């Protein structure tokens, strides 16, 4: 190959010029990809990147507890620190840099207006314990967000304070437990479908419930008959609640959800709905119309607060009339023109407190900004496009990948299994790693657990047809290569990344969880 100047762009194999074409460099850097040591290897206890005024001289009041040994912290000057963290950032895949179809995670665009609003001093620089009279705008914001979330879900009441989705589950299930206790009902079984997020059974178990599994039907949904059978198993009237995700983790709408709700209610139990997939139905379907009693909303999914490398999340819980009285403190109370925050349980039926202070205010600001930007029409359009995109991917890949529950309309994510790859020597994991080399973040893999080699693809509404088409083309090409016997390529992947496949077994066997000066 010659370039425009007529020079060879790559040395011929075996030629003298080829000595250093392995990709190795003297520095360890590779062009724009910088290898970056740990801050402890470049910093020092003597360095700092912060200038502070000198402390006035006083007799200390530390009561003899003054520190007498080094902590072991390492510092960097500001330019060194900026470079260190910028280089680290460049080793991350992100929504802003590419397609991130991670099923069940709703990796949608994070509008920067949300960030700007959260940093207004009147939101970002107010203290949870300053007099409530000095923060009326904060309470008003919480009320506005609550109002939107209640109207979008068609529910009676809301608990804003849970810190993440799993914390919201805990909140909802605590409300259910409190309601049962108040009624003197000793129910101790929670029904959980096999396809549920792991947080569902973990939450139920944390509260001392026995978890009883409900199988899904051939079409991937939970049938009312299966719930009825599970309720009758081992003695019947002891079911406290069912925890059902809708749309479910297979990307399907639970068609018999109302019948299931009626059945559970008829027996005196409660219906917890995992709202992780609310982005599929927001502005279209009201969970309250389906008979649910409690549901958490992941503000970091449906309402675009940034995922931030794994948090912080925010998981407000909407509650039915039957559970409203048991919501945790703090909660808002309006008396005419006066809005106040109830911070103590005295004189209420509240089950208690889930966290110090008032929850994830920074996330409320971002979520409300997102909601106002969209309006009901924009939210409706967003869920529509999310579902459209998932079904388009389904239509374009269904001849090369197997849909475990048959060819049916999906919601905002589409599920395939690895059966069509059988005999190729290529697994779901291998396909995911090859996608990384192609510049895509892989879909969620091996979840839900009920499907062998699951691939759960959630494109979200943020992607253009051009991006989605490119992803589809790449998926089809890779699947063809798998069938053509190119398994070695897949097993080697990824090769264009800062690190190649990592030894996770070794990491768990002998955990190294921190840097040590001796290492």
């Amino acid at each position: 190959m010659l370039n425009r100047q007529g020079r060879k762009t790559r040395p011929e194999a075996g030629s003298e010029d080829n000595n250093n074409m392995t990709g190795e460099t003297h520095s360890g850097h590779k062009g724009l990809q910088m290898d970056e040591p740990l801050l402890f290897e470049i910093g020092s206890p003597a360095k700092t990147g912060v200038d502070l005024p000198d402390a006035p001289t006083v007799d200390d009041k530390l009561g003899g507890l003054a520190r007498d040994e080094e902590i072991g912290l390492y510092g960097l000057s500001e330019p060194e620190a900026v470079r260190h963290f910028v280089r680290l950032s460049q080793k991350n895949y992100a929504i802003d840099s590419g397609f991130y179809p991670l099923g069940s995670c709703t990796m949608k665009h994070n509008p920067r207006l949300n960030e700007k609003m959260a940093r207004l001093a009147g939101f970002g620089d107010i203290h949870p314990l300053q007099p409530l009279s000095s923060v009326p705008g904060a309470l008003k914001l919480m009320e506005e967000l609550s109002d939107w979330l209640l109207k979008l879900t068609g529910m009676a009441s809301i608990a804003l304070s849970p810190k993440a989705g799993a914390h919201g589950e805990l909140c909802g299930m605590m409300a259910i437990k409190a309601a049962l206790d108040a009624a003197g009902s000793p129910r101790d079984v929670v029904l959980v479908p096999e396809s549920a997020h792991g947080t569902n059974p973990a939450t139920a178990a944390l509260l001392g419930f026995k978890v009883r599994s409900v199988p899904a039907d051939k079409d991937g949904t939970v049938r009312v008959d299966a719930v009825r059978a599970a309720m009758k198993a081992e003695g019947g009237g002891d079911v406290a609640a069912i925890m059902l995700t809708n749309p479910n983790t297979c990307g399907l709408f639970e068609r018999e959800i109302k019948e299931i709700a009626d059945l559970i209610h008829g027996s005196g139990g409660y219906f917890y709905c995992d709202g992780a997939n609310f982005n599929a139905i927001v502005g279209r379907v009201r969970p309250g119309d389906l008979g649910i009693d409690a549901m958490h909303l992941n503000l970091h999914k449906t309402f675009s607060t940034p995922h931030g490398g794994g948090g912080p999340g925010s998981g407000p819980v909407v509650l039915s009339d039957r559970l409203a009285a048991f919501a945790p403190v703090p909660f808002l109370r309006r008396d005419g023109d006066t809005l106040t925050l109830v911070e103590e349980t005295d004189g209420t039926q509240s089950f208690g407190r889930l966290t110090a202070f008032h929850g994830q205010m920074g996330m409320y600001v971002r979520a409300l900004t997102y909601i106002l930007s969209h309006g009901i029409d924009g939210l409706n359009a967003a869920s529509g496009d999310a579902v459209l995109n998932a079904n388009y991917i389904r239509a374009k890949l269904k001849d090369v990948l197997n849909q475990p529950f048959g060819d049916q309309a999906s919601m905002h994510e589409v599920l395939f299994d690895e059966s069509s790859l059988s005999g190729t020597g290529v697994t779901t994991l291998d396909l995911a790693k090859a996608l990384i080399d192609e510049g895509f973040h892989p879909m969620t893999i091996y979840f839900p657990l009920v499907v062998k080699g699951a691939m759960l693809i959630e494109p979200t509404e943020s992607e253009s047809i051009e991006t989605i088409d490119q992803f589809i083309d790449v998926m089809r090409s890779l699947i063809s290569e798998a069938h053509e016997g190119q398994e070695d390529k897949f097993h080697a992947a990824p090769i264009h990344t800062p690190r190649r496949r990592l030894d996770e077994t070794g990491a768990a066997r002998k955990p190294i969880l921190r840097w040590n000066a001796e290492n």
Partner: protein
Amino acid sequence: MRYLPHTKQSREAMLEAIGVSSIDQIFKDAGAPQIALDDFALPKHLSEMEVERHMAALAAQNRAAGAGPFFVGCGAYKHHVPASVDHLIQRSEFLTSYTPYQPEISQGTLQYLFEFQTQVAALLGGEIANASLYDGSTGCGEAVLMAHRLTRRKKAVLAGNLHPQYGAVVKTLSDMSGFEVVDGTVTPGGVEDLSTLIDDETSCVVVQTPDIFGTLHDLTKIAETAQAKGALLIAVVTEVVSLGAVKSPGSMGADIIVAEGQSIGNGLNFGGPYLGLLATRHKFVRQMPGRVCGETVDADGERGYVLTLSTREQHIRREKATSNICTNSGLCCLAFTIHMTLLGEKGLTKLSRLNHAKAVQLSQQLAEIEGVTLLNDQFFNEFTLKLEGRDAAEVTAQLAAKDILAGVPGGRLWPERDDVKDLLIVAVTETVTDADFDALVAGLKEALNA
């Protein structure tokens, strides 16, 4: 709609490929019962400019901490955060990535988590730390459950001077999970003898230092007492800047140390998002809740990082998991790590000295006011004043009317107790100026004479 890339044409092309007439038809086919848009009775979308105007109007009704004299603490502190911290955490690759499920393209997040864990372990004086929990209070609840698993006992003793909202979190979790909690005695400015509350059933003793009134505690004795009875000492720190000046809880014998990390790198945000820190002994690692990052090697033998020990976690263990926690406080950890890196040992030491010296100065000035008694002998950057015969909530309201946010009145934290109504808890950080001192001293004198 500015956030949606599709056009009428692209939607039509996609519907044709799917073989349906409309998006609504997909919902019908999927069995999802839609309602009409008008039935929501909610407003339509707004331009960026209109949203900004609406939000700014709400924000303008709130008195920002930085807008005047400010002395409010009790678990959240106003510290100066260097500009580079907020700039760096807003880099797209940090802000818009998720849990590092694919480590090959997440080494940035994983490496800073490894650095974070190293800093947290050193700061709290533990051997290891996790990759953070939601906040200090939920971390405290998780630590108690962890102690129950380790000791196979079910009773926690909570010091009376533990932040009452932390206590409430532990009690709610314990009530709901069938565990027992024994309350200590609220002892403003003093040190309670907890040894009599510990028995053979006690799983853990939870002690906060500096405590809710600001008093520093030597944990050495209570650690020995608890451990002699087979219980664990859980130390709680809500102001981690103190650890630049005082001995770490780990060095005083605590088995599990939980802390609120907000003070480093994170704003007040009306209570969240914050980050919970948890450090402990290496031998307890398999009962530790939350995500943890570990070092390993890649296929080429290069050092790299992965999330590890996930066999403790809910997505593998389901109902047998150590905790139901799924996320950590990723971006808040990053802010903590960057700020702590900028500070370094040298900067943190100086910052904590500055906080302490200012607090000592102000405490002396305030204690000279007639009708004011300083309750603490030993404190870091927060102390408690007794306002003889006065309701501190009324006094703070009067001062707030003059734009001075004086601190937290006892009645805000314990509305049901009469014996703390005359207490005012005052926090002093490096952000407080001499003019703020003067304003508070003058304002308090005036309020007490009224």
